[in-house]
């Protein structure tokens, strides 16, 4: 089973929920548990929020693209913006890194913790691509195989 979805929407806070619900609906077609899907939703929410807040710095007229590929192994999610880019990706991924004291700087921490792989590419003035993967875990089948 392979399915692919591509969404493109404006950099509005209202679209953060839209993106995570759409990805969750697609993830529901694979054998993810409900708690897996809840964690995928958090990761998508963080990536899209980063694009809105940091990529476009609150500007509402930038484009954000979310591309999702689903197969029997799991889900791959690419969140892309064409905003200001990240000067130091390593630093941005550190826990607590945030210019805003009201924000916790945990966006990338959540993405890393809730997904099984995270790659970030960025170029100043060109934008940012966040690529995440999560595999389906086959605990039930594995137990039966072991027996």
């Amino acid at each position, binding site marked *: 089973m392979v399915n692919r979805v591509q969404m493109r929407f404006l950099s509005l*806070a209202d679209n953060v929920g839209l993106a995570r619900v759409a990805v969750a609906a697609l993830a529901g077609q694979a054998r993810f548990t409900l708690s897996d899907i809840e964690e995928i939703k*958090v990761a998508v929410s963080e990536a899209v929020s980063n694009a809105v807040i940091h990529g476009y710095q609150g500007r509402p007229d930038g484009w954000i693209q979310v591309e999702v590929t689903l197969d029997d192994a799991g889900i791959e999610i690419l969140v892309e913006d064409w905003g200001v880019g990240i000067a130091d990706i390593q630093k941005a991924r550190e826990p607590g890194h945030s210019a805003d004291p*009201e924000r916790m700087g*945990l966006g990338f921490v959540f993405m890393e*913790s809730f997904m099984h792989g995270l790659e970030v590419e960025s170029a100043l003035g060109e934008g940012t691509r966040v690529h995440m993967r999560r595999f389906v875990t086959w605990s039930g089948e594995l137990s039966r195989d072991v027996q």
Partner: protein
Amino acid sequence: MTIIHSVHRQSVHVRIKGDLDLKTADALRESLDQLIDRYRDKDLVLDLEDVAFMDSSGLGVILGRYRRLAQQGRRLRLEGVRPAVKVVLELAGIDSIMSISDSADGRPTAPQPQS
């Protein structure tokens, strides 16, 4: 997102309904700050029974209110926390600094000392 508050002898209870994310963070921050400023001698209890989703934007609002209250010697408690929200709170270490009650049994979990 909607919030309904009720004033008790020692605390203000706030029932929040809806997702806590980038879209709702500013409105939630503003509402909670108004309550904190209006009832200056009371603790704050947030009932999250009707909050199905929270990400770091919602978490930031809660932590920011916790800091404000702590500076004034007041407390913030979370009640009715659903499993999906609890995972996020635990990953951020929030459960180590404030009291959190699950939605299932309602029993408070004492803050764990930080190691």
